[in-house]
């Protein structure tokens, strides 16, 4: 079953433009000019129940707009959209009972009252039966380690503490689909790890579908098997993270410090025939680019030794971050 099924989903905004100067301001009063901006440009999105999908893109790529359409906050300009079998905007009240949302930048807890009171209120809002609430929340509170926090008002919590409470609040009604908009923004490594572990757990145990937007690609690496990259309102990549790496990763780089200095040509000659290019970065210091998957590091070393002795060596693989940056920069459309 598809959790999210969007076809040709588009959102346009009208942006009013103001003329310059005092005269312009008066003219604006009578006749305002606007420009239409397409924030999301006819995207297709199919996400199956139980998937964890990373949704990434630069600022202003249209991620948040998409999430807001998927959660029923914004009405799409055109296109078809079914989420959990509902039309999110038209059937909003019935639909939102089936989803949980965490906006990293906004709190959904009541600022001035104890977290526990917020939970209680949400229990009433979602009409969760008492015994079910007890059973489920006791566990959530335990795993997220927030038992000692929930008697305090939200305003007294640190960001990491608050974030874990937000996550718990989004799960009170056990939604089958969870939207996380930048859930780990500004958190330290330990809290991040705690949250990720928890998300993996609920995904495995309840089959919760999770759609996650983030700027932190380590979130995606830790959680998602599928990643969707958005650029200027278009999906430019949709597929496995591994595939992204093999397709776009430029192989490995090997940094070498040699015992003695050699001219570049000798090294090139030694590895002639292999898909390796060299760069000299200083006396005795070189970089070898392994441009193809065919060639391995041991292969390289076998060709250099024994004449060329190696003092230090470091192998670097392109990180997901670098790959994504490269994709943004080249803006390549990948179906």
């Amino acid at each position, binding site marked *: 079953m598809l959790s999210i099924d969007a076809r040709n989903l588009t959102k346009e905004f009208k942006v009013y433009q103001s003329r310059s100067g005092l005269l312009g301001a008066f003219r604006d009063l009578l006749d305002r000019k606007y420009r239409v901006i397409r924030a999301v440009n006819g995207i297709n999105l199919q996400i199956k129940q139980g998937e964890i999908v990373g949704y990434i893109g630069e600022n202003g790529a249209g991620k948040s707009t998409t999430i*807001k359409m998927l959660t*029923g906050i914004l009405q799409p300009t055109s296109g078809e959209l079914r989420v959990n079998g509902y039309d999110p905007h038209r059937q909003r009240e019935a639909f939102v*009972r089936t989803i949980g949302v965490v906006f990293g930048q906004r709190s959904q807890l009541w600022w001035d*009252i104890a977290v526990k*009171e917020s939970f209680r209120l949400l229990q009433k809002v979602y*009409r969760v039966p008492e015994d079910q609430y007890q059973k489920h929340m006791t566990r959530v509170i335990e795993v997220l380690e927030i038992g000692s926090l929930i008697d305090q008002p939200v305003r007294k919590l640190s960001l990491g503490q608050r974030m874990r409470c937000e996550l718990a609040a989004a799960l009170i009604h056990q939604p089958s689909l969870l939207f996380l908009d930048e859930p780990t923004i500004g958190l330290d490594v330990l809290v991040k790890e705690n949250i990720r572990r928890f998300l993996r757990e609920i995904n495995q145990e309840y089959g919760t579908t999770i759609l996650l937007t983030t700027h932190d690609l380590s979130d995606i690496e830790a959680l998602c098997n599928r990643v969707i990259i958005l650029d200027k309102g278009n999906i430019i990549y949709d597929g496995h993270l591994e595939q992204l790496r093999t397709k776009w990763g430029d192989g490995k780089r090997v940094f070498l410090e040699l015992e003695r200095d050699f001219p570049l040509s000798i090294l090139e000659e030694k590895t002639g025939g292999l898909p390796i290019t060299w760069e000299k970065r200083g006396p005795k210091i070189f970089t070898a680019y392994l441009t193809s998957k065919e060639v391995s590091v041991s292969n390289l070393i076998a060709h250099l030794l024994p004449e060329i002795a190696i003092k230090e060596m470091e192998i670097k693989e392109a990180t997901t971050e670098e790959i994504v940056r490269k994709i943004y920069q080249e803006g390549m459309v990948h179906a």
Partner: protein
Amino acid sequence: MLKMYLSLIRIRFLMMLAYRVNYYSGIVIYSLNIGVYYFLWMAIYGDGQSLGGLTPGQMATYIAIAWMSRAFYFNNLDREIAQEIRDGTVAIELIRPYHYLMVKLFQGFGEGLFRLLLFSLPGMVLVSLIFPISLPGMMDSSWFYFSLSLLGGFLINAQLNILTGLLAFFILNNQGLIRAKRVLVDLLSGLTLPIHFYPEWAQGILSFLPFQAISYSPNMILIGGWSGHEIGQALLIQGIWVILLCLPIQLLWTRARKTLIVQGG
């Protein structure tokens, strides 16, 4: 459903309690207002026994009732809604399975109830010790009509506030509008000047506006200025306004949801 709204009222109570110092100062301000208006009106009465059909005693009671019931019907829903629209918090409200405006209304009700119990009642005791105020007996039926009318006043005022607040969807900064509305309500609702002191033509216009149903109607009922027939008519008019005001609110809300741009990401 009801349970949820009751919890909302409860939460509002808790929030008000968290900032309880706010309303201690409120008691002082309201008592001062009552004092100022009392002495002003007594100066106007001079030695006269009746003005516009009210005795000095009735007038004093009118002033006290008007301000103390203002504590109940007054709320900041307009500012809250405008604020939530401006900073984008409204997005959070839209992912919850309830009607945003209904929730706002109940929050306002919780706030009003809080002030009624912890502000108006003690305030009224205080004021009646200082000024010559005559309230109907405990078992008098005008208390019942007054409560009904006060609730009507609350609803109409809340609806006007919601309407003003919602305009923030279209005019992103409606602070001036909110302030203008507040002054207008205080002036035209009969709080600062009972409606029957307005010139004839103004009374004619005001009778077609919802403002007089906010303060003037409940006050007149409690000070015994109206006959049974007039009370019935005033309550009917309040009822009609409550229903009528639902229309522009619903219209504005539907349009607003369509054009919503969530600000700040």
